[in-house]
């Protein structure tokens, strides 16, 4: 349109964002002690950011990457509920090769992020205990079709864990670890009258859990009855409407109706639209200008302008830019070029390809 001036976008501070993630990988201040039991997930957001920025090779060296792979494999742990990755050694008194105890067990979300992190670091996965991983998935599934974060009693379960179980099965190219037919009704029970999905049945629709629900449905194997188009035309329309309405006047997305915009929902809602084949409906220039304002002056991206950055919001903002790069109505520089993303398993296409060709292992020839 002739009356619309093109928008001049500020630079995406690539070096600053890479630096923020590199610093976090090297160590966190005591004020971040709350990530003690989720360190591997945090590491994934840091490594994933470097991957999206195409900075992994330039900002880290072979020795570091080798050490990090070793550290992640230290979290690979076997026991009575099968094999998976634990979040860190925060409950491990000493290195031993014995089976894990009930309180040092592998964790579903961590296992998903460990597989992706190792793929980013180009591990060959020769050490992966695949039958053990299938056993772990089996041990985590509940009667209602959802999944515990950890096997045994005491763990919680909601749709985020379902997504991780689906993504792991998809990367393994083996769905024998989960009962898909039992998992799907749980996902559909999370759908609400607004067209989004809540964290568990009866809960309010939310951007992050909507992504988990949709990605799970689209990941489901070809043998499952919903494969192809898991939503009815009416449901798809309603979900697209809700997602599109989550983009606010600031250009950023909010996660729930009538809430403030937050950088992470630019990914959760933006990726959901991509999964529904409706990514063209996002106003990308406004989205980019919102994320540009979320940049922290010393590096990293925050949830909203003026807040402090963290690897989670940095990664998800970059992932959102990857799916929805600023369009031709913006004047921009190459600083906004982010590697293409696989929106289903949430990593770069290159890393997804690595994961899919190395995680399944050798197919047994029949």
């Amino acid at each position, binding site marked *: 349109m002739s009356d619309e001036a093109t928008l001049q976008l500020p630079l995406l501070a690539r070096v600053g964002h890479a630096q923020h993630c590199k610093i976090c990988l090297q160590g*966190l201040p005591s004020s971040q002690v709350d990530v003690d039991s989720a360190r591997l997930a945090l*590491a994934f957001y840091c490594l994933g950011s470097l991957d999206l920025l195409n900075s992994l090779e330039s900002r880290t060296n072979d020795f570091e990457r080798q050490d990090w792979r070793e550290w992640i494999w230290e979290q690979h742990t076997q026991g009575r509920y099968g094999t998976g990755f634990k979040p860190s050694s925060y409950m491990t*008194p000493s290195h031993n090769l014995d089976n894990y105890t009930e*309180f040092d067990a592998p964790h579903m979300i961590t296992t998903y992020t460990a597989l992706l992190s190792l793929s980013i670091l180009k591990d060959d996965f020769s050490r992966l205990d695949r039958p053990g991983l299938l056993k772990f998935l089996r041990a985590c599934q509940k009667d209602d079709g959802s999944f515990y974060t950890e096997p045994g009693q005491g763990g919680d379960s909601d749709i985020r864990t379902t997504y991780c179980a689906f993504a792991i099965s998809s990367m393994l190219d083996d769905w024998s670890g989960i009962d898909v037919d039992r998992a799907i009704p749980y996902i559909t029970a999370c759908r*609400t*009258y607004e067209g989004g999905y809540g964290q568990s049945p009866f*809960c309010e629709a939310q951007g992050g859990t909507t992504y988990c629900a949709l990605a799970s449905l689209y990941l489901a194997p070809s043998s499952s009855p919903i494969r192809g188009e898991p939503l009815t035309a009416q449901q798809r329309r309603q979900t697209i409407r809700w997602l599109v309405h989550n983009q606010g*006047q600031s250009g950023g997305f909010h996660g729930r109706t009538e809430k403030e915009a937050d950088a992470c929902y630019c990914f959760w809602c933006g990726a959901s639209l991509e999964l529904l084949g409706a990514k063209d409906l996002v106003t990308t220039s406004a989205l980019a200008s919102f994320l540009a304002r979320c940049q922290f002056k010393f590096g990293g991206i925050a949830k909203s302008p003026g807040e402090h950055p963290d690897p989670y919001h940095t990664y998800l903002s970059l992932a959102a830019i990857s799916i929805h790069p600023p369009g031709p109505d913006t004047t921009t520089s190459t600083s906004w070029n982010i590697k293409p993303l696989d929106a289903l398993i949430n990593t770069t296409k290159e890393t997804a390809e690595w994961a899919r060709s190395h995680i399944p292992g050798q197919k047994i020839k029949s």
Partner: protein
Amino acid sequence: MPTIHTDPPTLYAERSDWADVTPQAQYENVNPLAPIFYTEEYKDATDYFRAIVKSGEMSERVLELTENIIRQNPAHYTAWQYRYKTLLTIKAPLDVELRLMDELAVKHLKTYQVWHHRRLLLTETRKPVPELAFIARSLKADEKNYHTWSYRQWLLAYFNDDELWDGELEFVERMLKGDIRNNSAWHHRFFIVFQSGTRKGDEDRDEVVRRELAYVKQSISQAPNNASAWNYLRGVLDHSHTPYSTLQLFVQLYTVPHSPGETAVEVIDLENPPPSKDSQLPCPAAIEFLADIYELEGGNGIPKATELWKSLANEHDTIRKKYWEYRIREALQSTGP
């Protein structure tokens, strides 16, 4: 006379009542990813916690230790799990634990574990009724807190007592009176009215739908630009299979600017409450709704819908320009030759 006051040692390593335990340092490889530079207090407490978990001790002092860790790191899920198991094993009074949780829940509202622990406790105590007042109190600290609302929904669905449901509609109305844009409250309203069985007095479902439509229309008239209310309205219509067109007269009032001559002399139609005088009109959500009615009408409705979508794309809701243009394309395609 000054008294000599010595603080009790804060570190477990210095406490005589813990002298029988050999602390277990965290195993760490030479170059770990994202190591945390722990405070001395945290390192000390978790060294003792690893030792306790290793020995399997479940005792009063384990409750003190896990509380200490939780206060330093409320996301330490293993401390929560071990604490829960200890509470049950030593048969600790769970009402005392709940009072402690009252404090920790408000302090750490956004921590998942606080709420998960509370659910586990309730499945043991099975006394859900006082929880409703507790939840109402903690919502005061954060009215849209997702965990708090989820906990309330879980509590109602899990125990499913008439006594629990009795005051819910009143509660949710109070919340909405406090903030008409609280989508969590609107969602909760939908859950209690339509998704959880039929309450006493609500057996006439048509009457319930009429009541809900009247309620949401009234709410829209007070604050027309509230996406939560419009989504609720759509939800009620979809759920009850009521055609959108039955609301045409109502929504049309919101699709045009205030007229200069509008005064109190007009007769108020209770079925179609008009927008409040200070509201901003036209309301994009109403234009969208009217366009939906026209689209469903088909035929001559399509050009009318297209005009409305164009006005949204170019004037009233430009952030969603691409979406409104997509709606135009879709409508023309489905009616095309």
